[in-house]
């Protein structure tokens, strides 16, 4: 029995390590392949974390599913912090706040409806960018310009991969 338990722990650790490595690879792809010359990049990891929380909250074990979404948000935030130039932890905080707020707000809605995913990712991106703004930019910055120049383009970019990503996660999570 002790053996079984330690094997389960080892399997769990191996799964978590595998997830971290995959998210790190996706973070690398996000910061290298998914960037535009104008300085923006498609926030694939944020979409993944929000999608995981939404799909997880719609399963037979919604709390556990939602918690997996939070772990994804944390891991992917750390991965971006590792590759980015902002203070370490800022992306993780922004991801966690976005996934938590959006996940709690949409937990009663069916993720099968495309509009739910799109609205969730849109709100999540705005929260994410707002948290980064509060964490990094100097006080007294022009928030209206920030909304226009940074937040809105990021929001539009985040909507591009939303539906395919959520559909893929839905298929993966529901069939595993």
């Amino acid at each position: 029995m002790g053996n079984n338990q330690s094997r389960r722990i080892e399997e769990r650790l191996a799964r978590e390590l595998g997830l971290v490595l995959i998210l790190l690879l996706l973070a690398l792809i996000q910061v290298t392949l998914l960037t535009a010359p104008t300085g923006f990049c498609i926030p694939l990891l944020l979409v993944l974390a929000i999608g995981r929380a939404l799909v997880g909250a719609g399963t037979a074990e919604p709390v556990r599913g939602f918690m997996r979404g939070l772990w994804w948000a944390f891991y992917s935030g750390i991965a971006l912090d590792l590759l980015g130039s902002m203070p370490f932890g800022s992306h993780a905080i922004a991801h966690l706040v976005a996934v938590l707020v959006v996940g709690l707000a949409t937990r009663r809605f069916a993720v099968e409806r495309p509009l739910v995913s799109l609205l969730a990712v849109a709100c999540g991106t705005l929260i994410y960018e707002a948290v980064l703004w509060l964490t990094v930019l100097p006080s007294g910055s022009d928030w209206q310009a920030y909304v226009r120049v940074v937040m809105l383009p990021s929001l539009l970019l985040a909507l591009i991969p939303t539906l395919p990503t959520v559909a893929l996660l839905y298929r993966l999570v529901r069939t595993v």
Partner: protein
Amino acid sequence: MRDFLDERPLKLRREPAGDRGYWRVIALALVLLLVSVLMLVLDRQGIITPVHLRLREVLQPLASWLTERRTDLVSWWSTPRDVATMQARIAELEAENARLAAEVLRLKQVQVENSFLRQQLAITRSYPWTILGAEVMVLAPDAARRVLTIARGAEDGVRVGMAVISQQPGGPPALIGVVEAVGPRTADVLMITDISSQLSVRLLQADSAPLGLMQGQWQRGSRLRVELIDRSLAMREGDHVVTAGISGALDLPLDLAAMPQAVPIGVIEAVRQEGQRQIGEIRPFVDPDQVRYVWVIISQDG
């Protein structure tokens, strides 16, 4: 309940059962947020920064490789189709003679390197600077800060506060940023267009060179702006803007003491009045977002 056909536990979708159990979600979120805030505090105090830089060093080769692939893809996409056909034909011919293809590739690399070195030599002849060439490895993943990572670090003599310049065809070598953080073999450069970038500058006019304060404006939808310290002086369109290098001239123990004076930045494009203040919009000689190769000014005495 069990599914007796395949002996697996059956999971049924639960009916909406209120918010029971969501306290676990909140608790987990709070714990993870606490850990993230702790990391943020430790990073701000510089405790985990060396580990952060070291880990990034490990990932940089893969990041550089992916960035190169992206650049290849973009250039392929922007190439006209008829030229692409010719290139395919050339590729076929090259495949027939592997040795010649390798030689052509090597010569092309030498040519690019030669071009950068010629530029470097021209800069060194015209300005009293010792400079160090560096490739741009990756741009920051977030739009909130304008930072790029270069493939030179502390082992090459790069230090925080050093000026980073680049050159576009037909223009002078010009400031694009300041070294913000240094790892053993890489360094982060804060672009001058970032909102947190502030530098003392001089405006070159016919009879004087008044001091001003320049700030990045990227996050506000513009690029650079300057405001004169002495409000009684006039700013004119077409005035050239260069670094003032005040910290270095006064020998102040600041990071920016490494910033030389008279590094070109740009030209005043428009001037507007805001109450008592004169604000000048600067058009930089080099767009920091477009550079792929830069030089770090190691010292200013040649």
